[in-house]
């Protein structure tokens, strides 16, 4: 790379529009990363609001706040907003900000596609959330959109299908961009097996996305033609089969679960070594474990369908395959603990979230093992036990890693240290209220309370009340996170280039805040 050439390229970028216009036209990975994250945070509060209405309704038996129809709509859209609007875009935001910085690239490979991937998201979100306003209200079939129930819905179901299509297209473009960037734009000397763990997890996640997003698109398109164009893919009276939708949906749905957790594993694999001041234990086995989880994710979808009535051989196959996932996941947890072993450990907020992640995600892993066992699943399927399980995996899993990662990299993004005291308060409020909210739901599920019901038998009252109180604490605690982030952006102790004593990686070699353009010439990587 010649210096003169680079200087010229650098100058070109200063003609970008300023103000709001900058964000519509930007092709800068840092701008786009920030937009993804703000979008994600907004959707997190939108979805959280829906969750609080649900929990308020469930505070006691009877119907008090919303009617059963609206209740079903809230559970459906809460799930879709949190999955497609909050968790996935947050990780894409991380990918945008961190991957170029971590592999020493100047930007993402396809900068304009990157802009387009982001700007597809707000219209999709508007369709999803706006569907509450159309006649009949939003889709109320559960986020899985099982026909024939989803065939019965009104125009909101079509809006949901369109939203899913748009977000799927956005994810596929984002994934192509991420794969291309990782495979082609690494700093010289950074071989695949020397890449930062977060980059590895995203590379695998991006392949998963490309593999399964088109499958979901196919499933919802068949739903759309069944609804409007006289096809009978899922209608037995016309030779179709409702069960086929479930198979196709979960062929997407299970890898989707890992799409939402693998980047989280990546983030945690950076935070723990930093604050243990010790290199990640078992780097190679971490990579192999991640890849194994991704491959296994394609052959376990049937564990969502043990109550469908598959033959015994099918049930057994999916039970064994699902149990196998415990092995690579266990390897990851052991590696993190081995990383902590004989470290020099400090407990800054990112580390608290990482430890919270390892402990609580593992509880979600255990309840996953319980649910993997077909006969036990029979008695727990579609109960609150499942709700507890996936919130342990998604909230104290994915979202803890997102928050921990935010505290970890905020100094790099903003140039300021966040308020450590408030950060710790936020962690403890979140961790405690999370457990108050979701732990009792295990008991509800074991006792037989089905999910997605607006009203329940009196025997379930006490645990629902505890859960609802926890949920309100949990929800309002997140406003503190918003405050800490804004406070950090507006000022604070100046962050050094290497903001954490034990931090390793190329992102810590550039100044804090990271300049608008970084690594215009590839850095040296040793």
């Amino acid at each position, binding site marked *: 790379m010649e210096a003169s050439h680079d200087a010229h390229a650098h100058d070109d970028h200063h003609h970008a529009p300023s103000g709001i216009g900058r964000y519509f036209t930007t092709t800068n990975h840092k701008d786009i990363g920030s937009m993804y994250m703000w979008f994600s945070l907004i959707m997190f509060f939108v979805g959280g609001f829906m969750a609080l209405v649900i929990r308020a309704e469930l505070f006691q038996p009877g119907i008090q706040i919303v009617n059963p129809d609206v209740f079903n709509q809230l559970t459906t859209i809460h799930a879709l907003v949190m999955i497609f609007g909050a968790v996935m875009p947050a990780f894409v935001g991380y990918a945008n900000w961190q991957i170029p910085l971590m592999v020493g690239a100047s930007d993402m490979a396809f900068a304009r596609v990157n802009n387009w991937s982001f700007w597809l998201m707000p219209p999709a979100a508007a369709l999803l959330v706006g569907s509450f306003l159309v006649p009949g209200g939003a889709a109320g079939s559960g986020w899985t959109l099982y026909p024939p129930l989803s065939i019965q819905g009104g125009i909101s179901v079509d809006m949901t299908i369109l939203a899913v299509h748009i977000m799927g297209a956005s994810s596929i473009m984002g994934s192509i961009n991420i794969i291309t960037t990782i495979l082609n734009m690494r700093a010289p000397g950074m071989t695949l097996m020397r890449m930062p763990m977060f980059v590895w997890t995203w590379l695998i996640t991006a392949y998963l996305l490309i593999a399964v997003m088109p499958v979901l698109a196919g499933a919802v398109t068949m739903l759309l033609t069944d609804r409007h164009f006289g096809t009978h893919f899922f209608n037995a009276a016309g030779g179709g089969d409702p069960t086929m939708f479930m198979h196709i949906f979960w062929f997407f749905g299970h890898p989707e679960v890992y799409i939402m957790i693998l980047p989280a594993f990546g983030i945690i694999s950076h935070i723990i070594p930093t604050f243990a001041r010790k290199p990640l234990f078992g*780097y190679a086995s971490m990579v192999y474990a991640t890849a194994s989880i991704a491959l296994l994710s394609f052959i376990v979808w049937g564990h969502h369908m043990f109550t469908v009535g598959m033959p015994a051989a099918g049930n057994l196959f999916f039970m064994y395959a699902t149990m196998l996932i415990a092995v690579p996941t266990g390897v990851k947890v052991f590696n993190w603990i081995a990383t902590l072993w004989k470290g020099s450990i400090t407990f800054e907020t990112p580390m608290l979230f990482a430890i919270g992640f390892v402990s609580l995600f593992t509880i979600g892993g255990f309840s996953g093992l319980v649910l993997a*066992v077909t006969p036990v699943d029979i008695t727990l*399927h579609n109960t609150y036990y499942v709700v507890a399980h996936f919130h342990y995996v998604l909230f104290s899993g994915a979202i803890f890693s997102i928050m921990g990662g935010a505290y970890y990299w905020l100094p790099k993004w903003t140039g300021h240290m966040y308020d450590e005291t408030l950060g710790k308060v936020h962690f403890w409020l979140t961790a405690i209220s999370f457990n108050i909210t979701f732990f009792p739901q295990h008991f509800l599920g074991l006792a037989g309370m089905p999910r997605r019901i607006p009203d329940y038998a009196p025997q379930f009252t006490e645990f629902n009340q505890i859960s609802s109180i926890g949920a309100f604490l949990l929800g309002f605690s997140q406003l503190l996170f918003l405050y800490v982030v804004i406070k950090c952006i507006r000022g604070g102790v100046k962050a050094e280039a290497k903001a954490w004593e034990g931090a390793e990686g190329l992102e810590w070699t550039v100044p804090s805040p990271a300049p608008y353009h970084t690594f215009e010439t590839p850095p040296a990587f040793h």
Partner: protein
Amino acid sequence: MKKLRVIAGALAATLPALALAGYDVNIPAPKTPISTQIYGLHMEILWVCLAIFVVVFGVMFYSLFAHRKSKGAVAANFHENHMVEVIWTLIPFVILAVIAFPATRTVLSMKDASNPDMTIKVTAYQWKWQYDYLNDGVKIYATLSTPREQIGSPEEHGKVSNEHYLLETDNNVVVPVGKKIRLLITANDVIHGWYVPQLGVNQYGIPGFIKDTWFQANEPGIFRGQCSQICGKEHGYMPIVVEAKSPEDYAAWVKEQKAKQAEAAQPADKVSLADTAAR
């Protein structure tokens, strides 16, 4: 710190209180051979998980405590150990095999609905259940019997006073104790789930398809459950109540139902006969 201790103390004090108050914290008492096996499997896995949790997180919290920088811990620099990594990859396989073996047995017996003593066809509707006793010719519909005025704002209707609020039907499914009862489950509109935890049954009814499952109640009793798969607005209001009775009581119930059915069919005949005579 002091506050935390207070909170922890309060929690520690409440947990046993909750247990004493008899709130359900586990799968309800199993009443069939299959649900007994399910109960046992769940307990086995729970203990295995607890043991792993204590060992693994014992190590983690020890490390967090002992290897703190504030205690002057200096970081070691090891980052792999093939022997350890192989061992902790293999051990989980063994644990999983221990769980999988009894689970496989249960799956096989659960799926074996052959040679039943009697068969009931269950058809789900939005939002009720139809039961056809294929051997005895009885046909009943079961809908929620909780009065509508109990559902709704407690300010207007007072606290929910009914013990079996939402878990009671106008016609219970009566079955004989000790007989293998095969269920043929289907649905007429959308997917529903026939779910009674104490009987160890949770089976989707899928429109256009018939799925089978079975149970055998060990003792007389009333077992309650609900629709397990979201099926629209009234999903929370389609309970299932199974009444297991001695074979004699069951026979009496069948007789009574048949008499009712005959009575219900009669007036139509009479009217049409009278009409014919008048003309």
